[in-house]
């Protein structure tokens, strides 16, 4: 997919002025609320018209001084913040709404394979008003994918869901698009969502793109200014109950986590603020996890120094102030101990 967007749109409160070209399939648009992200979605989808500029998708001009392809002919799917399912149609008829309007030569995805990927087969004959929030968003995703779009715009699709649902839906969003080869633009103000959904991120502020980077670099850059620090995402496996806490496998290491059981593979978040570094092995500490690590690299972020550690084949980021870094003698290749309390982990799914 190649998307070129160079447009301007004036509003009374702010001006949107963007110019970017992206060629990856999983693009994130990150920025605070009110920065113009949703306006950008509307302009790319054709729901609003730019004052001037150009929008091209895979070499086809969707908008310029002479062209303005209407929304219904752009073949750009949208997943909105709210599912916007048609309340008078069943789940099946919602799913097929775009499919039946797609020309036969573009109809590459069939309902049976999609229903399997999204696990909504049992919902097909039901009305949409009694579905749960997560089911509704899955149906909305399925409906957009079945319209066989060239590009899918996901406009804060998780912000109306609670945390548990958010992280349950993410694998569906990403998995379904990968499965059916649909590139997407994922719009969100959540850095964590960006890291789970995007390979490349356009950072947006006040109607302009301010940077283009990877989600990982963005997270490291923002570590120093973020109240939650850098969020380590840990895929933990093989849960075993051990005296009121659960032991998980993490690379070759074992981690003790204050959680009730696990489902086999669980995703946990751990803030860089919750990792305490020791120069030498401490005699005894209250934290239940003490990992022997090696410093891979350090990076500056605001007033903090991020320390990327290699522990049992996995990566972990801790943050320290410059004074602590000097005392610990932190440098590339140095061996160090990282202590993490069992209660510092938060289960995402």
């Amino acid at each position, binding site marked *: 997919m190649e998307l070129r967007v160079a447009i301007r749109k004036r509003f009374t409160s702010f001006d949107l002025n963007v110019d970017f070209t992206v060629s990856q399939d999983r693009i994130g648009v990150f920025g605070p609320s009110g920065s113009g992200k949703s306006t950008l979605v509307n302009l790319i989808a054709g729901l609003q018209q730019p004052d001037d500029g150009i929008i091209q998708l895979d070499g086809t001009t969707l908008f310029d001084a002479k062209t303005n392809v209407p929304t219904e002919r752009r073949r750009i799917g949208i997943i909105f913040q709210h599912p*916007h399912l*048609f309340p008078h149609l069943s789940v099946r008829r919602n799913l097929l709404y*775009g499919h039946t309007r797609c020309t036969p030569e573009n109809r590459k995805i069939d309902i049976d394979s999609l229903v399997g990927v999204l696990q909504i087969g049992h919902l097909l004959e039901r009305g949409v008003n009694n579905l749960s929030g997560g089911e509704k968003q899955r149906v909305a995703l399925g*409906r957009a994918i079945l319209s066989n779009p060239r590009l899918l715009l996901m406009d804060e699709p998780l912000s109306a869901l609670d945390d548990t649902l958010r992280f349950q839906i993410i694998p569906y969003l990403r998995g379904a698009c990968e499965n059916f080869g649909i590139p997407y633009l994922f719009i969100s103000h959540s850095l964590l969502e960006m890291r789970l959904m995007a390979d490349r991120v356009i950072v947006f502020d006040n109607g302009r793109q301010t940077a283009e980077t990877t989600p990982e670099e963005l997270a490291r850059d923002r570590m120093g200014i973020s109240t939650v620090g850098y969020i380590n995402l840990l895929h933990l496996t093989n849960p075993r109950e051990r005296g009121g806490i659960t032991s998980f496998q993490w690379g070759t290491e074992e981690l003790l986590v204050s959680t009730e059981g696990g489902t086999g593979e669980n995703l946990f978040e751990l803030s860089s603020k919750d990792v305490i570094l020791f120069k030498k092995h401490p005699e005894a500490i209250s934290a239940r996890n003490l990992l022997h690590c090696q410093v891979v690299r350090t990076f500056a972020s605001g007033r903090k120094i991020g320390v990327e550690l290699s522990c049992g084949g996995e990566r972990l980021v801790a943050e320290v102030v410059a004074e602590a870094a000097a005392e610990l003698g932190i440098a590339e290749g140095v061996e160090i101990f990282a202590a993490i309390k069992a209660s510092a982990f938060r289960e995402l799914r």
Partner: protein
Amino acid sequence: MLEFSSAEYAAILLSLKVSVVATILSLPFGFAVAYAMTYRKFRGKVALDVFVNLPLTLPPVVIGYILLLLLGQRGFIGQHVLQPLGIKLIFTWKAAVIATAVVGFPLLVRSIRIGMETIDQGLLQASCSLGAGWFDTMLTIILPLSLRGVIAGSALMFARGLGEFGATIIVAGNIPGVTQTIPLAIYEYASSPSGDAMAIALCVVSIVISVAVLLFHEYLSRRMTRGD
């Protein structure tokens, strides 16, 4: 026991016929005007709004007189459109239909508009992004989702049509068996010394029909709500 003569039966049937035909004929226009007023931006929107709603505030007699001036033999439409086509409207039941349609039209448009305004804009954007053009969206999303408004408007217009008097008597007259509807018949009986009983009986018929229409409307609304 009071028995209706053929003239009273004719008045009842004519009232029903005029209201039904006026409502059915107005429906597509009412829907189109409500759609334009809700979803389209165009010059003269305010003027159209005032024009459509004018019959609500004008005395029906004034509407009847304006229609008479337009549709009569010397009227603009009567002379240039109807006469060449050999159509005579004034003092026929068709004139009563037109009078009823004009008087009830704003009620129909208002109800459909309220129904349309409650439709989430996001649904329309979703349908567009799924490949449906405006006409497709209108038929498959807006029409079914504003159906309650359409039914409410039709019921209101039908009920208003049953009571239509002022405009009808001017353009259609009060000819028993031809243009005499229930209100006109009641007016005639109420004006005659011995007509009280028959006037009251026709009033009862009016009430029964109106209650039946309202109950039918309520039944449909409940069914549609349950259908959610």
